[in-house]
């Protein structure tokens, strides 16, 4: 039986090789893949240079800002630019839709600004060609064109009956076809991912992207699962359809429905079900909570009174001017920490909203495997929303460390009542090391994308359910 499967697979491959239209499509897709990878690589290298220059410049600005009061330095602040990960050349993900730089200063956690897509015009909304797009949408279409008449033609030409009369089971025929068509897409994806791996090793900027090798292997794995599931589904539709035309139409509707319509409707539905407030309201609520406290006994005045009392008690003095530290520094840091607490609280609510919105899409991935592979691909390339959030969190941690260091210096080394008279210089600025970022370990992704993993797994498992069993040979 194994021999029969291989013979059938070989025949299918020969058949595809003899169809000029399919060969042309194959070449076009391979060319698009190569072009997108190359273009992605150039964009990546360009941005790498731009970002490094900018980051170095800002670092120099911070170190060379001269002597001044540490709190003024905390307001002078510095900048962090969102780095491009190496795998962004494969899958741009949300890079064009998330801000690229953030200003870090005291009191105000600023938003990331300058989404690349702003000012690009309408055309950008049609998408950018990336290798991921080719593998997610275009390659399945090629598979669709190759497979839609695989069974219907056999039925129409009587060869299926001939095969069965030779003692070949439907199962063997099905598996032979599945093997052949899987080999076709593997002919594209295997060299591609090997090339990507080599590129990754040569590019060698593992400083930002953790587990590069593992990520590429996982990418290969999920894309293979996706494409095998799609191939199987196509073959199965051909098997079940009464004519080639019906098979083609059904598959095209599936491809468009799950690749274009459902991703859009689910994201839009998510937004409708879990709407966001305006940034104005969002900021107002935060400012309100900072001023009046999140609870009745956390108002600014009450906190200040409590802080004073605590320090007077701790150092056993009667007034703050008698403290061995500059109370202003303490007060500023306390204000900072409370503001951080409020910001964290509100941002957590906002993040939860985003999560709920995105969950609608994740759920839909059970019907539309394209959504599963799209989300997982972005996650592995570290160009997804969670990677961005992680970056945001780490810049915020860095900001807080910077502010804390400045306020601490002010508290410990300046006197109560002096402000502009107290100056520090490079020695303090140097203690804040340059911001370095590394993406979280790839294993951390699984918690966010378990639905997508489950969806892909189910689609692949469907192969075992849909393949005709060995004793089913009734075709009439």
């Amino acid at each position, binding site marked *: 039986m194994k021999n029969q499967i291989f*013979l059938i697979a070989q*025949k299918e491959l020969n058949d595809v090789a003899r169809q000029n239209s399919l060969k042309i499509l194959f070449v076009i897709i391979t060319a698009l893949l190569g072009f997108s990878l190359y273009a992605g690589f150039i964009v990546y290298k360009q941005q790498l240079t731009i970002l490094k220059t900018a980051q170095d410049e800002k670092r120099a600005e911070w170190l060379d800002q001269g002597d001044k009061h540490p709190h003024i330095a905390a307001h002078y602040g510095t900048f962090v630019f969102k780095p491009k990960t190496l795998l962004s050349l494969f899958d741009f993900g949300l890079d064009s839709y998330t801000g690229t730089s953030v200003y870090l200063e005291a009191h105000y956690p600023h938003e990331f600004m300058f989404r690349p897509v702003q000012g690009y015009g309408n055309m950008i909304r049609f998408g950018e060609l990336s290798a991921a797009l080719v593998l997610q949408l275009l390659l399945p279409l090629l598979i669709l064109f190759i497979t839609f008449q695989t069974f219907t033609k056999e039925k129409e030409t*009587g060869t299926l009956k*001939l095969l069965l009369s*030779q*003692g*070949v089971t439907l199962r063997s025929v099905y598996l032979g076809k599945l093997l052949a068509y899987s080999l076709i897409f593997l002919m594209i994806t295997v060299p591609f991912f090997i090339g990507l791996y080599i590129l990754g090793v040569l590019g060698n900027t593992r400083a930002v992207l953790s587990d590069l090798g593992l990520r590429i292997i996982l990418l290969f794995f999920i894309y293979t699962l996706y494409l095998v599931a799609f191939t199987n589904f196509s073959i199965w539709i051909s098997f079940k359809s009464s004519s080639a035309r019906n098979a083609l139409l059904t598959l095209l509707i599936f491809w468009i429905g799950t690749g274009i319509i459902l991703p859009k409707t689910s994201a839009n539905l998510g937004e409708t079900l879990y709407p966001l407030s305006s940034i104005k309201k969002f900021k107002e609520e935060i400012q309100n909570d900072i001023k009046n406290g999140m609870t009745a006994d956390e108002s600014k005045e009450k906190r200040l009174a409590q802080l004073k009392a605590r320090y007077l008690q701790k150092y056993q003095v009667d007034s703050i001017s008698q403290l061995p530290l500059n109370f202003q520094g303490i007060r500023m840091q306390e204000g900072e920490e409370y503001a951080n607490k409020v910001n964290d609280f509100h941002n957590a609510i906002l993040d939860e909203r985003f999560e709920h919105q995105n969950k609608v899409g994740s759920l839909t991935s059970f019907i539309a495997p394209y959504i599963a592979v799209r989300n997982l691909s972005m996650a592995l390339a570290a160009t997804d929303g969670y990677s961005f959030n992680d970056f945001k969190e780490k810049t915020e941690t860095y900001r807080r460390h910077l502010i804390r260091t400045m306020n601490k210096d002010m508290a410990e080394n300046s006197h109560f009542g002096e402000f502009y008279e107290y100056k520090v210089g490079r020695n303090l600025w140097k203690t804040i090391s340059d911001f370095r970022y590394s993406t979280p370990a790839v294993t951390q992704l699984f918690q966010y994308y378990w639905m997508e993993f489950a969806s892909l797994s189910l689609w692949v498992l469907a192969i075992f359910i849909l393949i005709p069993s060995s*004793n089913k*040979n009734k075709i*009439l």
Partner: protein
Amino acid sequence: MLEAKDLTKKYGAFTALDTLNLHIRAGDIFCLLGANGAGKSTTINLFLNFINPSSGKAFVNGLDVEKNPQKTKQWLSYIPENLQLYQNMTGLENLRFFCGLQGGNQNQEELEELLIQSGLQKDFIKKRVSSYSKGMRQKVGVALARAKGAKILLLDEPTSGLDPKASNEFSELLLELKEKKVAILMATHDLFRAKDTGTHIGIMKEGILVDKMETNQVSFQDLEQKYLRHMHV
């Protein structure tokens, strides 16, 4: 070789085949005559295990087809109505493929010889099947049957669409196989071919085998009369 015992096939209320009893021996060419929908193809499909009987049994070489679907196929060969083969492959490649599937290991010369023996012109052997006429495709089908060495051949409307010459060539092939003691069951409309080639004739109407005769015991005119009489009742 081929036996049907009270073989019946129903699709809901519709009876496609009603208690067929049949026995075909080695060297017989049994022609099933009848209009469209009479049950001829159903009979063949039952022997091939493409469908399950509602009741009754079909036997190939004494084995119940339903219980031994794969085993019984080793003795069977089949040429469907309107066999088109794999259009992008040559006749030779098609033969090699199907032979390979049944475990055959004939080399190129042997396969070519089989095709020539089956009447295919030498310069068409390596041409793509898309350029073949129906008659030529039938010959590839016959070559396949020979390659398999099958003792039973099932044919569904083999001469429909063939010109008289091709039809004649095909009949001669069948007679050759008959000499080799192959049992042949042929569903057809072609009274002339049935009388000319067949050893036995069965007339089917609305799923029932209404008449059965040996060909040498009836003249063509009588056959025609009987056929028309049954069709008009």
